[in-house]
């Protein structure tokens, strides 16, 4: 079962951010894996705000609103409204900086597998903040709750993601109060309990929709989660007065009678280590990296390693990389729009300043609008199940049209002179270049159209 068919080009295309004209692909599967465990140089070179920093924006907004309420004169009210508007606009515009740095990480990384895993797990734990500024906090969520854990264990990542303020906001946990809690008795909150987070943790994040849980499990798990909420001044908060008193039984195991955050961690760890979770995660990894309809043996191999290692992610990745099915030479998966753009910038060797120098309106026209047209508006999937995997979702007339337009128009604005299209075929596709692509690159009337054609070739859009 050694990776007999390992190929460096395939490693960068399938498991990394694509081929680069300046950065060599990993020598072997071990090097690919080591990249995930080594120092995170991209996070340091292209920093994205942590949630702790982002939270100071939320505090600033809260203070500004309090000041507005106290404002007496028309003039102070006007000035303070302006302050509020500025805070909101700054967070909105900062999204472009974070998106730019995400793309730059793809362009310049030597450990592309890490960026791919961050994207995979960020999608697994999809969050779209809902209230006020938190709707701009998705990048910060990924930076704080996902990225540090991609080389760790799944139980740790599950706890970090589930108890994160942006997740609590997204899945309505911030409004969930135990029906028999002291807070409910005082009628502090009338909204009652909300099962959303409990259900999605079981259905999407751990056991899977076919997993062995019942509505009763969801209900008791939701009761166990009451008390978990978010306070801008504290971040994650556990309010005992909101928690449902008494023990809760989830999947046959009973968690302590006294409400405590530790019981929530314990239940999450048990869910993470459940065999159904192993199967669910194994299948998702195989679907994401290898094939929409993955080899059952590959899935079984990943699941077995997950169980044996207690969800130790590097060991699970190693199982993926050592399986022959992972190295099937046919490129089967279609890159989603963001990955398409990231790998295009990488293939073109776009310089840092060309992307980071764009102001918000320019960045919007160059990236955000085309991303939406391609069907993947930045950080805005339609539900907690994240972006689709199946190729039919991405190969649509509109998406392909938008890819062609972007690929023909944008590279010339970001590159200091486009490469010779004939060289670019090899640069972008390596051993996966085909005759029709070579011909298209040499026969196109203009360099920009030739580059666009290479980037839109099926061989570049797949991995």
């Amino acid at each position, binding site marked *: 079962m050694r990776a007999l068919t390992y190929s460096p080009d395939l490693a960068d295309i399938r498991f990394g951010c694509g081929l680069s004209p300046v950065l060599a692909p990993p020598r072997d599967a071990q090097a690919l894996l080591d990249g995930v465990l080594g120092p995170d140089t991209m996070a340091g070179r292209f920093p994205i705000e942590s949630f702790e920093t982002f939270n100071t924006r939320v505090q600033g907004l809260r203070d500004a609103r309090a000041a507005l309420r106290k404002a007496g004169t028309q003039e102070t009210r006007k000035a303070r409204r302006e302050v509020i508007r500025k805070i909101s606009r700054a967070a909105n515009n900062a999204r472009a900086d974070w998106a730019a740095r995400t793309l730059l990480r793809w362009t310049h990384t030597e450990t592309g597998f890490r960026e791919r895993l961050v994207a995979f797990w960020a999608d697994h734990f999809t969050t779209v903040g809902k209230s006020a500024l938190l709707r701009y906090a998705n990048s910060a969520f990924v930076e704080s709750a996902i990225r540090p854990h991609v080389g760790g264990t799944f139980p740790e990542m599950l706890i970090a993601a589930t108890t994160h303020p942006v997740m609590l906001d997204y*899945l309505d946990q911030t409004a969930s109060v135990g029906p028999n809690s002291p807070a409910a008795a005082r009628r502090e909150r009338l909204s009652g309990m909300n099962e959303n987070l409990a259900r999605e943790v079981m259905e999407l994040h751990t056991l899977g929709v076919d997993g062995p849980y019942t509505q009763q499990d969801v209900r008791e798990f939701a009761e166990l989660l009451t008390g978990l909420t978010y306070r801008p001044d504290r971040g994650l908060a556990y309010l005992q007065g909101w928690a449902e008193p008494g023990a809760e039984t989830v999947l046959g195991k009973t968690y302590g009678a006294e409400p405590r955050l530790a019981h929530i961690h314990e239940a999450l760890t048990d869910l993470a280590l459940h065999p159904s979770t192993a199967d669910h995660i194994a299948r998702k990894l195989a679907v994401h990296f290898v094939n929409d309809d993955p080899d059952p043996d590959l899935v079984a191999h990943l699941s077995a390693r997950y169980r044996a290692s207690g969800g130790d992610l590097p060991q699970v990745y190693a199982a993926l990389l050592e399986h022959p099915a992972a190295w099937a030479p046919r490129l089967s998966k279609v890159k989603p729009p963001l990955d398409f753009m990231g790998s295009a910038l990488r293939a073109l060797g776009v310089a840092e300043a060309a992307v980071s120098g764009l102001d918000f309106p320019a960045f919007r026209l160059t990236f955000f609008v085309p991303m939406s047209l391609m*069907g993947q508006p930045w950080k805005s999937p*339609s539900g907690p199940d994240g972006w689709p995997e199946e190729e039919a979702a991405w190969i649509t007339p*509109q998406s392909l049209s*938008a890819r*062609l337009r972007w690929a023909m128009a944008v590279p010339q604005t970001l590159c200091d002179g486009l490469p010779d299209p004939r060289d670019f075929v090899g640069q972008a596709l390596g051993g996966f270049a085909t005759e029709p692509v070579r011909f298209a690159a040499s026969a196109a009337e203009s360099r920009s159209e030739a580059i666009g054609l290479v980037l839109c*070739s099926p061989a570049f859009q797949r991995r």
Partner: protein
Amino acid sequence: MTRSTLSRRAFLARSALLGCSAAASPLMTPVSLAAAPWDTRVVVIILRGGMDGLDALRPYGDPDFAALRPGLAAARDPALDLAGGFGLHPALSGLMPLWAQGELGFVQAVSTPYRDKRSHFDGQDMLEAGTETLGSGQEGWLNRMLQQMPGVEAETAYAVGRGEMKVLLGPADVADWTPDAALRMSPQALQLAELMMEEDPAFHAALSEAVALSDDGSGIMAAEQSMTRDMRAALRGAPHVKIAEFVAERLRGETRVAAFSLIGWDTHRQQERSLGASLERLTQTLLTLREASGPQVWGKTAVVAMTEFGRTVRMNGTGGTDHGTGGAMVLSGGAIRGGRVLGDWPGLAEADLYERRDLMPTGDVRASAAWILRAATGLDRQVMESLVFPGLDMGRDPGLML
């Protein structure tokens, strides 16, 4: 997500008809006589932001209206009076001929079951999900309707425009397209792209379909293309007219359901200016749909324009209105029985308001939508109430359709 390319069969049929080049595509497809699953066309327009129903359709006949909206009462124009004491906003005056012909109607004082928090996002999610409560399920009522219909193909339903249309989201096949994504490249580049895609049938089918969809009459082939310039133009221009033209064109073919959004209804300040512009766009959209679909297709079309909630009955301090509850729904098309303002008017006296601030909703927007879908598709009431809008009581048939 269910966005898909054309089915292989539909694609081959189209290729045979049009050839693979845009040049062969006629400017306007003839009205299709082929076997689409049903004949009536349904267009759903989501008015995002919360349209002020009291300003769009002014209840001049209500004794309390003049005190709540003195500016509007003073500006009453008898030429825009409709039935039952209601009058149109001046920006809707272009629709008077439709009213006269029974192709325009309204339902007043309606809402979704959403209450109290008045969030745009939740309100729109409820409106598009068509459910009793806010769930995490991401399935729209139009998609659930499609799931009940036999013979739905990739072109039966279209989500049009750049934003996501959750009302169409779900397992049934739905196509999507936005006119500002139209292909622009040289004829040679297009030929090379087609050659290159031949290696990959899925990409090749999508490209051929994109070529066919891109031909809006101005031609795909631009000698010199600049995406950013095109996009700037698209951002500035009149995308609603392009969308309406595209939808009309599809309705002449196999498409039976289309949904798109109009934005610009969140009129917290200077409503006089901002609402007028939005209603003007709605007018242009409806007139374009009517004009471009042609009398035969327009005669079989029902357009439903709905919003996530109405607005406060009183003006706020900045010449606008804030998020409210009960609102108005606009119906248009040759298939509707227009010329009427429907709905159970609750009155505007303080005691009749919802939470003393909003128009009291007396009807459910889903019931009107359900009756229209039922008339268009022939689906049973029981299917509408259990599967398309689970838990809805459609009430008495208001006879919305001819």
